[in-house]
């Protein structure tokens, strides 16, 4: 099993510092959701954790070893990543796309093996995309396409999986479906998962562990119950809200308070 750790991490785009001296641990075998307002550095942190961005300072370690000193392909057998906007080449079939997730397991002279076939098959089954295997990716709906990309990440068979906003552009039903799928993966395989997620309520529902970020720093980390409070929402999102127990899951449920549609007595209460 694998533990992903960032220590005194500083991440910059050219001279612009986005994350400064941040230390965080992605706990093993849990689902971690990274939340925060737009441009708070949460996607940048994910890029730093997955070696897409070389740190200007500090280190990122996987099982105690610096991820930047390990061979890229070896690292990709342990640490998987699904970026926000992957692009599917024209005319590629679902099975072909999912199969490309096997690249890190293939050697220079070792091509496709029965083991690769099995991994692809399992990934297709787990994401319920087996019946789409022969279809072209361009023909699929947004929800199906996202499941296929997740299948590709599953075929990579990594112990740690990082996902950058995997529910963007999906309707609510598909958002829930994707998060259920990721939870299945975590429960069945014990995969350590870290997700950058926009929707705070879904994050509170599906996370074992929440990391809240503001201006490139970690403001709070812990279970949703401990971390997601009215104070945190005010601090991180600059939004007044009520936080009540979710009637379905008893996890925190954030009810935003805007300027309209709010009776005055409630304004007095808050």
């Amino acid at each position, binding site marked *: 099993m694998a533990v992903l750790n960032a220590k005194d991490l500083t991440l910059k*785009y*050219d001279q612009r510092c986005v994350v400064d001296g941040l230390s965080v641990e992605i706990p093993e075998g849990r689902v971690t959701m990274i939340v925060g307002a737009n441009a708070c550095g949460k*996607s*940048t942190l994910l*890029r730093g954790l*997955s*070696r*897409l961005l070389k740190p200007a300072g500090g280190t990122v370690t996987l099982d105690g070893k610096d991820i930047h000193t390990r061979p*890229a*392909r*070896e*690292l*990709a*057998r342990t640490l*998987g*990543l*699904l*970026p*926000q*906007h*992957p*692009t*599917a*080449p*024209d*005319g*590629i*079939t679902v*099975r*072909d*796309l999912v199969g*490309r*997730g096997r*690249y*890190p397991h293939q050697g220079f002279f070792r091509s496709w093996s029965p083991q690769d076939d099995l991994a692809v098959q399992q990934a297709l089954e787990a994401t319920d995309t*087996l*019946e789409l*295997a*022969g*279809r072209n990716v361009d023909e699929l709906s947004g929800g199906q396409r996202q499941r296929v990309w997740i299948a590709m*990440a599953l075929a*990579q068979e990594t112990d740690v999986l*990082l996902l950058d906003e995997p529910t963007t552009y999906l309707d609510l039903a598909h958002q829930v479906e994707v998060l259920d799928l990721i939870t299945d993966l975590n429960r069945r395989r014990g995969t350590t998962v870290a997700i950058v997620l926009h929707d705070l309520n879904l994050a509170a529902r599906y996370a074992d562990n929440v990391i809240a970020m503001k201006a490139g720093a970690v403001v709070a980390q812990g279970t949703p119950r401990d971390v997601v409070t009215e104070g945190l929402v005010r601090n991180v999102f600059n939004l007044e809200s009520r936080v009540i127990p979710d009637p379905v899951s008893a996890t925190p449920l954030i009810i935003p308070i805007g300027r309209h549609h709010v009776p005055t007595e409630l304004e007095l209460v808050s």
Partner: protein
Amino acid sequence: MTLKATTPTRPDALSDRAPKTASQGLDLIGQRRGRAGLNRTSVLAAGVVLLFFASVLLGSYTVTIPDFFTIVANHLTGGAKIPGASFIVMENKLPRAVIGTMIGLAFGLAGALFQTMLRNPLASPDIIGISYGASAAAVVAIVIFGASGAAVSGAALGGALGVAALIYAISSGTGMRGAGRGNAAGNRLVLAGVGIAAALHAVVNFLMTRADIRTAADALVWLNGSLNSASWDRAAVLFLALAVLLPAVAVISGPLRLLELGDDTAAGLGIRVNPTRLALVVIAVTLAAVATAAAGPVSFVAFLAGPIARRFTRKASLPASALVGALIVLAADYFAANIAPLLLDGTALPVGVVTGALGAPFLLWLLVTNNRKDA
């Protein structure tokens, strides 16, 4: 008895089998698609072989198939020559067809590598000025330094590599890196290339107006692309270059398949994106450069081969693109050397004029249909 025993199990068996056969059916579709792609690639290969022999055997001087084999066998063993025919086949038609095939393969691959890597059909070496860099350097060598022969080919090679390095430096310059890299990097490369091509165009035009008429005629070959001066020496150089470059393409094609998925996805799958991209650029530019050095910038072959191959095999494929490149050059050269004289009072055209005439409308068509798709 048997009926009784089987009936109760049947629903189970059916429900068990139903999804399995469905997925097997889909598997078959997938395989059939793959096989169709392979079949279509072999159709292309057969087409190249056919055109190769057509251009050697037919045309202004017709050679029969038995004669052709006698000529080649006797040439290799030092046997008796057929007067006239031996010379025309061995010194003119055969090297011409061999070089035509090889530059077609090289241009086709160079174009497909660029287009796939940058996810942009406009990003072929002839559009972004790399082939033009080769011809500009050749013209400079001829007009200013009075160079000829191998020196000009060398200058062309150097020019292509120099222009490629310049484009790469401009488009990956500091101050432009950010979260939105990837496609943006490709678009910058195309824009930088178009700009440099325009500048080189001006340089070439300036030199051509200053040069005396005979030098200008020499230089003109380097602006059009022509197989008229094909020789075994050139074929040998080209063959050696391809013997190194084709295996390199085979090695890099694996990582290229992942770069297609976007830089971030590729990095997540264990590709070192920047070194891989650099290696791809070097291989593709060298392919375009050695082909240009052998026959001048046969325009639009690199640009056309990838999209045509993709439409024909219904998926992106490097071997198919290479074969389409060879097909275009062989067909265009046959037309230029044998059919154009019939239409134009005996004037044989350089092959680059024919591919240019084919390429320009296709470029416009591609722009129009792409815009429609985006809208």
